[in-house]
């Protein structure tokens, strides 16, 4: 069964179906059903995935544009699989969370949900693509639904944020396009299949240039300091649901791309640039955290925390140890859940009060304890409290990095401390203290919202204590990747599976 195509096909057909439904409510329900079907299918697929089997499984390859050597090639390895899982899990949650989001403006509700499903298809595609060209196509095409979601349904500054988001990403994408073309030409294989291209570029100088082309695109996407400036705007202006997908999934494409393409296609260049990337990551970790502390706007604050977290992920990717690599991959998943939860809860808060400034809140804990409680859990997961899933990944990244680069690992640890400051301080300012006049009448989470938050919190807790299923899938893939970069861990790898327990 062509699993991956089916997943995308269901999403796209669902999107078309949504536009045909005349009734808004029906459309929402329909979207939810479709996204749940996709989730179910994905789970069914994931179950069949054998971690120690072939590197790429569920592979489908068809000629698409023979003239350019382009194939429709999809398949998943462990890394892609967990990221696809992340996406399809987040989508129904986001659908549920955005139940009333699209109604705020006088925009078409159906369009919003249709875009959401299109985006889902693209997200699956981008992670599953095994053809570099196809990857690029999804990479770019993904921007469009997100662009419309931010621009049409976002906050006051939405059009500015949407344009900034699109142009940054587009620019990065175009650089990547050049690199893709050059890769094709220089490799001279007449094909874009990833597996055929690995190892074809031997010349180190060429590798460096091509690496830069890909890397800048991914760094913008990720976003890595100093290419991050679009993220706070976009995330702050996007509707909560879109922000979750933006930060939780779309940005992962950047780090995923680094891991998949930058490392495997250009191993020598990757090694050459590692110090630079690590420096950028570390700066990003600290910078993001410090700036986050200074934010007065909750959404921007979360966006900056993400900048910091993406620093960790990139650090993990480029540390080039199994532990760090697996940690980074795991971090991508966990970050999706934790930041997603944060964005959603802040979204609920904002929906109630109509303001995303911290100063407008205070003492919410007393009027809305469940909201405050889940907010705390999500926040703690963001600062990597042991017992929550993010801790595992952050720890793996740090230990993995420490094996190879001591100083950066130490500096990065500062980020953990700063994270505690910004999260707890924000929590204190909004949830604790005397209840502000304006929040006195805030209702607590309703049933729908509880249904939104519950799975996320559950996942954070479950994977916090038992990340093994994920790591089992991830580890072989990461090892495989690193072996194709031909690095070996400096010393025998820590038995990572037990780390978090």
């Amino acid at each position, binding site marked *: 069964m062509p699993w991956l195509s089916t997943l995308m096909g269901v999403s796209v057909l669902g999107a078309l179906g949504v536009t045909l439904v005349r009734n808004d409510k029906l459309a929402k329900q329909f979207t939810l059903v479709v996204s749940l079907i996709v989730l179910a299918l994905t789970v069914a697929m994931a179950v069949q995935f054998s971690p120690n089997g072939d590197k790429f499984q569920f592979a489908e390859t068809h*000629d*698409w*544009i*023979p*003239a*350019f050597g382009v194939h429709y090639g999809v398949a998943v390895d462990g890394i892609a699989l967990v990221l696809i899982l992340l996406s399809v899990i987040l989508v129904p949650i986001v659908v549920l969370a955005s139940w009333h989001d699209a109604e705020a403006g*006088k*925009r*078409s509700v159906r*369009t919003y949900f249709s875009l959401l499903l299109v985006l889902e298809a693209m997200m699956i595609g981008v992670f599953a693509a095994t053809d570099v060209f196809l990857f*690029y*196509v*999804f*990479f*770019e*095409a993904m*921007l*469009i639904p997100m*662009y*419309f979601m931010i*621009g*049409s349904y976002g906050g006051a500054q*939405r*059009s500015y944020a*949407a*344009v900034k988001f*699109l*142009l940054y990403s*587009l*620019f990065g994408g*175009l*650089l990547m*396009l*050049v690199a893709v*073309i*050059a890769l*094709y*030409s220089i490799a001279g294989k007449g094909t874009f299949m990833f597996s055929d291209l690995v190892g074809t570029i031997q010349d180190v100088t060429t590798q460096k240039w091509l690496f830069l082309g890909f890397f800048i695109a991914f760094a913008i996407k990720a976003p890595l300091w100093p290419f991050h400036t679009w993220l706070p705007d976009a995330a702050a202006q996007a509707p909560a649901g879109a922000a979750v997908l933006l930060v939780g999934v779309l940005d992962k494409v950047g780090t995923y791309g680094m891991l998949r393409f930058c490392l495997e296609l250009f191993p020598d260049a990757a090694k050459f640039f590692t110090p630079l990337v690590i420096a950028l990551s570390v700066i990003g970790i600290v910078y993001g955290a410090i700036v986050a502390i200074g934010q007065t706007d909750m959404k921007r604050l979360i966006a900056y925390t993400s900048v910091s977290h993406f620093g960790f992920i990139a650090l993990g990717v480029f540390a080039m140890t199994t532990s760090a690599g697996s940690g980074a991959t795991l971090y991508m998943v966990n970050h999706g859940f934790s930041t997603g939860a944060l964005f959603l809860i802040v979204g609920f808060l904002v929906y109630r009060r109509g303001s995303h400034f911290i100063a407008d809140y205070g003492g919410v804990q007393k009027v809305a304890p469940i909201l405050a409680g889940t907010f705390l859990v999500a926040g703690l997961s963001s600062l990597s409290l042991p017992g929550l899933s993010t801790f595992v990944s952050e720890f793996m990244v740090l230990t993995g990095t420490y094996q190879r680069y001591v100083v950066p690992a130490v500096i990065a640890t500062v980020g953990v401390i700063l994270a505690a400051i910004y999260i707890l301080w924000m929590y204190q300012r909004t949830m604790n203290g005397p209840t502000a006049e304006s929040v006195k009448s805030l209702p607590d989470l309703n049933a729908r919202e509880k249904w939104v938050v519950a799975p996320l919190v559950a996942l954070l807790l479950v994977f916090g204590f038992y990340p093994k299923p994920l790591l089992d899938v991830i580890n072989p893939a990461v090892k495989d990747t690193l072996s194709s970069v031909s690095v070996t861990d400096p010393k025998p790898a820590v038995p990572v599976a037990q780390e978090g327990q």
Partner: protein
Amino acid sequence: MNGTIQAPSIEYALLAPVLVVFGAAIVGVLVEAFAPRYLRSAIHLPLTLLSLAGAFALAVWQAVKGVPTKPAAMGAVAVDGPALFIWGTILILAFVSVLLIKDEEHFVGSAAAVPGSAEEEQSLVERAAHTEVYPLVLFAVGGMLLFPAANDLLVAFVALEVMSLPLYLLCGLARRRRLLSQEAAVKYFLLGAFSSAFFLYGTALLYGFAGSVDLAKINQALGAVGGQDTLLYIGAAMLGVGLLFKIGAAPFQAWKPDVYQGAPTPITALMASGTLVAAFGALLRVFWVGLGGLDWDWRPVLYGVAILTMVVGAILAITQTDIKRMLAYSSIAHGGFLLIGVIATGQTQAENTSALSGLLFYLVAYGFTTVGAFAIVTMVRDPGGEAWHLSRWAGLGKRSPLLAGTFAFFLLAFAGIPLTSGFFGKYAIFQAAVANGAMPLVIIGVVASAIAAFFYVRVIVLMFFSDPAADGPSVVLPSRGTAAVVGIAALATVVLGVYPQPVLDLAHTAAQSLFVR
């Protein structure tokens, strides 16, 4: 003087597509002369469409029958693979444009009447119409067909004029904003004539150099004739000026925004698609066939021109407030991208083929998209005509989501977003250029695309993310022709964006044999 003259032989069958179009144009003039007024449109429209379709069928038939390997008509016209492909493209685009042109409300009833005068009112009351538009368009299309197939510079010059002269007139026939339209006609005419004078003088100098205006002979003479390099260089440069003017390459782009803005929108669509295709075909032929041996000299110049064109087109477009001007600058920028393809000639036939086929594909893709975009421009109306100011387009996404969505889609195709035809067009060109080592050019092209994307995105922002004005423009219900145009263009943009392989194959086959010499 009294030597025997070999009576020339002309392969009428090979030239049939061109002859059909010209013949229909002449019949069109007869219709103008003899048919009663109320019948004219009813005769013209089927005549025009049928002749274009017939010419297309003939071109296809020829391509199927086998592409000739020798120039026709005593070496004057080369009906080779690229020429047939370009013919097909132009004919389809012209067909689509004619569907737009058939809405006669875009054209002035009486061009001779002074705007605002009693005569003009009279012509409105009488519902006068210039049905001459149809034969004029056919003449222009005939010129477009001949121009890229011209195998000697004289035929190229004549074709250039046959193509341009009707367009000069058509430009001045807009029903609304007459003053602007007339200005556009004057500007286009004066600058166009100026540039064709350059083309001609270049031809003269090359003739002086090579003793012939035949492209192949000029190319032969490049190596053989010594001591007259000055003639050669100046001639080639002037020829280049003339050709670059027609495609609107910087620094000869000044006419394009003015003309696109002033001309009736259906005519703009025809110019933006057909003329560009034809001019690029001719440019390719002249530079590759005629001056192929000189490529070390012209390539750096074209390098510069391409860069300038992309940058100027992309940057000046940002400052535009008129939708048609913006599209014109976008067309300039696209001309720059296409020039990359012209430069991307390599040493081997395979590389040339890939560059050529990429270019041909780009032309098809861009042509359809641009016709569609202009078709949409015709549908958004203010009381005084089309809603030209960008601010009037604000909030169109709410008022008319389908229309705005389609337009946004075309804009994304211009910007080269994947899954639209524009992406594969750009990709094909860039790929060929990279393969030929024109990497810096590609990088600049990419930067220019990013800049260009800004103003496309801006329009989308305006349409979708701004609130509509209270007295916003109305979106007219499109006539069947216009609806068909938009539909065809959107379909082409999607199909070429998702499954370009058949057209790529076609372009590749056409480019396989390269130009006959």
